[in-house]
């Protein structure tokens, strides 16, 4: 895994040697050209990083059949957490809101990829709702494991999933792009990873059946839908099955949280990306005994927290993802 991460600096095509992610591979991972050198070291340097995802337009329509598309992903606000890794998660979530409100191109809406709360308490959810109100944006949520403690997600669905199916999954369309919110934090099996389950997989297959292959698809869920590091549970058991339903699409973007650090991988038509937390960082895979909250010097905390700004760049027919730290 570490090798793969380092290899990403080289930019070009690398032969993958990390494994266990259960995804049908084509032999090579095509890495994107990176804007900004040494950009991978977001964890250390708080460097702004960006990359562009090609939006292949199979209809050949050069003017593009997509409108402008701009949204922000935030993740892992862990409201209620008060340990040394960040004694003030309210302040850092507010800093994320300030960051969003200061973006030159205002996003249309926000995706929150879970762990809204730390302990699934009503007052924690209330607090986040109150702070995020200052963005004046529509917000779409998927649950993290911290949001479904003790009640299998009933309270989460009551608050954020009124129009969702099953355990809280749903889809919607924005400016020609199809968005799919998945739930992979419930009904987990001993020894396993995140899981979608057969009911959700069937729904997903059906949900995308009517879409043209040229429709850009953006999937968002809490736990990564590619295997980042199985020892720490950073992956989803049946994600390969889900991705198999999306193979025919020209452009698929998968946005996740959970691991409290940015990481990305491009494989064929699918680009995977994880966002930073707004609360506390976690160690890079395998660099610590466990994946728990990582304490960094107080003056460096905001450089390892952040938001992800996603913009469809009309001229280039590309989707640009920009991770910016809260520093």
């Amino acid at each position, binding site marked *: 895994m570490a090798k793969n991460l380092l290899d990403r600096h080289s930019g070009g095509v690398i032969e993958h040697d990390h494994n266990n992610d259960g995804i049908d591979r084509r032999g090579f991972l095509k890495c994107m050209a990176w804007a900004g050198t040494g950009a991978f070291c977001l964890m250390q340097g708080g460097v702004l990083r960006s990359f562009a995802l090609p939006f292949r337009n199979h209809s050949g329509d050069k003017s593009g059949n997509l409108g402008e598309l701009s949204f922000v992903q935030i993740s892992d606000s862990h409201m209620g957490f008060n340990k040394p890794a960040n004694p003030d998660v309210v302040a850092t979530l507010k800093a994320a809101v300030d960051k969003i409100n200061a973006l030159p191109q205002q996003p249309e809406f926000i995706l929150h990829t879970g762990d809204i709360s730390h302990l699934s308490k009503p007052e924690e959810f209330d607090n986040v709702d109150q702070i995020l109100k200052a963005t004046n944006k529509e917000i779409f949520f998927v649950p993290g494991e911290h949001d479904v*403690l003790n009640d299998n997600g009933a309270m989460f669905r009551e608050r954020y999933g009124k129009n969702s199916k099953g355990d809280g999954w749903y889809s919607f369309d924005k400016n020609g792009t199809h968005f799919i919110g998945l739930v992979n934090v419930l009904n987990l099996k001993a020894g396993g990873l995140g899981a979608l389950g057969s009911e959700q997989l069937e729904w997903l297959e059906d949900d995308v059946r009517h879409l043209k292959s040229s429709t850009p698809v953006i999937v968002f869920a809490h736990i990564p839908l590619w295997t980042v590091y199985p020892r720490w549970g950073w992956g989803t058991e049946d994600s390969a099955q889900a991705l198999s339903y999306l193979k025919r699409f020209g452009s698929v973007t998968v946005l996740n949280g959970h691991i409290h650090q940015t990481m990305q991988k491009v494989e064929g038509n699918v680009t995977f990306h994880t966002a930073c937390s707004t609360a506390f960082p976690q160690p890079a895979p395998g660099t610590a005994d466990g994946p728990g909250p990582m304490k960094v010097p107080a003056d460096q905390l905001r450089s390892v927290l952040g938001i992800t700004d996603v913009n469809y760049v009309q001229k280039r027919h590309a989707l640009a993802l920009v991770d910016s730290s809260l520093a």
Partner: protein
Amino acid sequence: MNRRFLVRLLPAILPLALVAILTLYSPRAASQEAKPSSTEVKVDNFAFAPQTLTVSANSTVTWVNKDDVPHVIASDQGVFKSKALDTDDKYSYTFTKPGTYTYFCSIHPKMTGTIIVH
């Protein structure tokens, strides 16, 4: 007076004395005392310690969460399940029947452990 009093007390004292003697000298009681009496499982750094714990029947096992994040103790077979344990929270379960009980953290399922009850 004194003697009559003692005689009347004998039926009450004798069984108590017998129990005391048996408890002190029976090999079974002695071996139970010699066993490690620790029935605590620490939940630390996303792992259970000890990962496998052996106890005698009717022992109460207590899990203590030493992590900065919550964990949930859940039997694989659905025998027991805790609420979410925040830092320093404890959960106890008394094992009455001998057997092997595997369990995991239902929100971090890579965390697994075993309680063997003799």
